[in-house]
């Protein structure tokens, strides 16, 4: 019998092309997602060196980061010009590079267009056991389907385009086990915020995280995508969740998923992937679902997490000097005072979207709160941005768009939107945003923007009351 192996080790072993003496491996990449921001310099590099894309069939390109979330075609079907010339240039570059290198391209107005990390799983491009990369750190999301997926830089994008491989060293493994039933109003977003709060923003560095336990097993695929998506906020390049019946049901019939006898062959392999009994992880962390409350962040690192019923910590309460300094700086930036109750924090903007929380279940959870209510007077901007055109269409079929619009939200076209300040959706300087995205970094949602990360239902609740709100009280 061979040694028991983890899910990560099985996928890793199945993709080694060549191992060098120092442990560096040439690893085969099964899937490559390309978007407009991190690819132009890679294509430029290929051109300069006279290289081609080795496996265009394993590559899929879609624009998302720069696209305005307003209408992309006018009544006559003509493209609405993009005001920012730099954005327009990046989008044009992708639009030209994809066909020039023979890559499948989803156009900005196609119904399938959306955020890369929503599109991959939705199209069945992401499969269990595959290695998947994208020039974007939230590629970790795809690990929810049991794919070894991680973000890469532009030089690596070029490397994958040219060779369909990457040079990597094996990572350490970390098991994060969550057991038990989540309380009322507690969502997958709260689970992952609790994890990051516990292990810290660098807690997973050098590791691939595998999420295990009954809470994860009970979670829907969309919930798992939310959890795995934020692995990078805990420092881990990739997150993984063992594929199970839910995964297979989710994938079956998706446009790019295998079918017929291919499906059976794939299924047989996928079933062999979960970690073996007795497989060892380098690090193990356990959380009890019953201890997890609806969470919000107070600072400028995703590890700055407190339950909604908590208050802003006193920087002096941190043990180490650098943490104290960082916390003091964060509070200054955030315009918050130590001891202030989170529930007293008023917000100006609401953002429901991003690759963390823009799938149909997220929109349903937010709509349930918004239904029959109105957003508060003081709210300056409240955006709901579906993760893809297909999510948008489904939400509209379910009437969710009407609910949001009647409550006073804006219903937008799919894209990254207010998750990062690259397109017209920005949080103005000094203003505060309750956001379902994944990063509360300084300037992330626009220069001077103050971000509080939370779940879709909590974001909708904040829209209604105008301040951070305990969803359990509002809906309980």
């Amino acid at each position, binding site marked *: 019998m061979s040694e028991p192996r983890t899910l990560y080790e099985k996928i890793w072993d199945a993709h080694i092309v060549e191992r060098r003496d120092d442990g560096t491996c040439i690893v085969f990449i099964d899937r490559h997602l390309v978007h407009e921001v991190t690819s132009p310099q890679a294509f430029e590099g290929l051109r300069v060196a006279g290289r081609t894309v080795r496996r265009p069939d394993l590559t899929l390109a879609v624009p998302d980061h720069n696209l305005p979330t307003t209408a992309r075609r006018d009544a006559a079907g003509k493209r609405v010009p993009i005001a920012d010339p730099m954005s327009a240039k990046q989008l044009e570059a992708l639009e030209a590079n994809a066909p020039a290198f023979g890559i499948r391209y989803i156009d900005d107005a196609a119904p399938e267009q959306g955020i890369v990390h929503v599109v991959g799983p939705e199209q069945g491009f992401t499969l269990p056991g595959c290695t998947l990369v994208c020039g*974007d750190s939230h590629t970790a999301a795809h690990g929810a389907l049991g794919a070894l997926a991680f973000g890469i830089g532009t030089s690596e994008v070029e490397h994958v385009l040219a060779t369909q491989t990457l040079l990597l060293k094996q990572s350490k493994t970390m098991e994060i086990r969550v057991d038990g039933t989540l309380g009322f109003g507690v969502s997958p977003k709260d689970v992952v915020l609790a994890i990051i709060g516990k292990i810290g923003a660098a807690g997973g560095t050098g590791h691939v995280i595998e999420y295990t336990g009954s809470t994860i097993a009970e979670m829907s695929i969309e919930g798992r995508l939310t959890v795995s998506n934020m692995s990078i906020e805990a420092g881990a390049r990739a997150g993984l969740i063992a594929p199970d019946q839910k995964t297979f049901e989710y994938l079956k019939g998706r446009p790019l998923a295998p079918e017929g006898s291919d499906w059976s062959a794939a299924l047989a392999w996928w079933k062999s992937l979960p970690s073996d009994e007795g497989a060892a992880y380098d690090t193990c962390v356990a959380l009890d679902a019953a201890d997890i409350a609806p969470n919000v962040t107070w600072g400028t690192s995703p590890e700055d997490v407190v339950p909604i019923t908590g208050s802003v910590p006193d920087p002096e309460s941190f043990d180490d000097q650098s943490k104290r300094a960082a916390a003091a700086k964060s509070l200054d930036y955030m315009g918050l005072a130590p001891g202030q109750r989170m529930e007293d924090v008023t917000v100006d903007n609401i953002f429901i979207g991003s690759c963390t929380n823009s799938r149909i279940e997220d929109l349903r959870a937010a709509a349930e709160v918004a239904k029959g209510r109105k957003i508060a007077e003081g709210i300056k901007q409240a955006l709901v941005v579906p993760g893809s055109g297909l999510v948008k269409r489904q939400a509209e079929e379910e009437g969710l768009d009407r609910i949001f619009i009647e409550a006073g939200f804006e219903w937008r076209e799919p894209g990254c939107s207010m998750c990062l300040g690259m397109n017209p959706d920005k949080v103005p300087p000094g203003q505060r945003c309750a956001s379902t995205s994944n990063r509360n970094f300084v300037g992330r949602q626009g220069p001077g923007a103050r971000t509080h990360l939370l779940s879709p239902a909590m974001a909708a609740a904040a829209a209604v009351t105008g301040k951070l709100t305990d969803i359990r009280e509002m809906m309980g």
Partner: protein
Amino acid sequence: MKPFTQVEGRAYPFGRTNIDTDVIIPAEFLKTISREGLGEGAFKTVREEAGNVFDDPAYAGATVLIAGDNFGCGSSREHAAWALEDMGVRVVIAPSFSDIFSGNVFKNGILAAELPQEAIDRLIEVAADGLEITVDLENQVVTTPFQDRFEFPIDTFRKECLLAGRDEIGLTLESDAAIAAFEQKMTAQRGWMAPQAK
């Protein structure tokens, strides 16, 4: 890629922890289709602070950056490496780096050297006086004019590539036959992995 052997120069005594790539180069500067000119946007929010190290003439032309724990965390943007390169930084020294960031700087011929916090504290003292720091990759050592000597670890593969200024893609393509053999094996074993257009 420029070969990297030894760098001798002034250093920015920056020292902050958890500096993410949004701080190194804010998103507003990512909309470029070229690798050049990003130094202008580097550390924009820090540079808005009075007395920041990056605009202090005492450190003008610094080639070394001394930072705190978990440097380069957050977004995978390689623009952070291009921004540092454009600023003229050839070495970053910190207690730890995010994985993606250290890979990205390496691919652009910048050395990310890890040293313990005590060494960082000492280097910051020296750098703050505007004195030069020497980073010798061949011997994996950082030295100061005061005989301080700190050895740093580095992966042998990365070291060789940096010393030779080698292009990774070219190197991998030397294994073209192995990649082709792997692809054949995959077609036989997991042929369903190649997506079919329907």
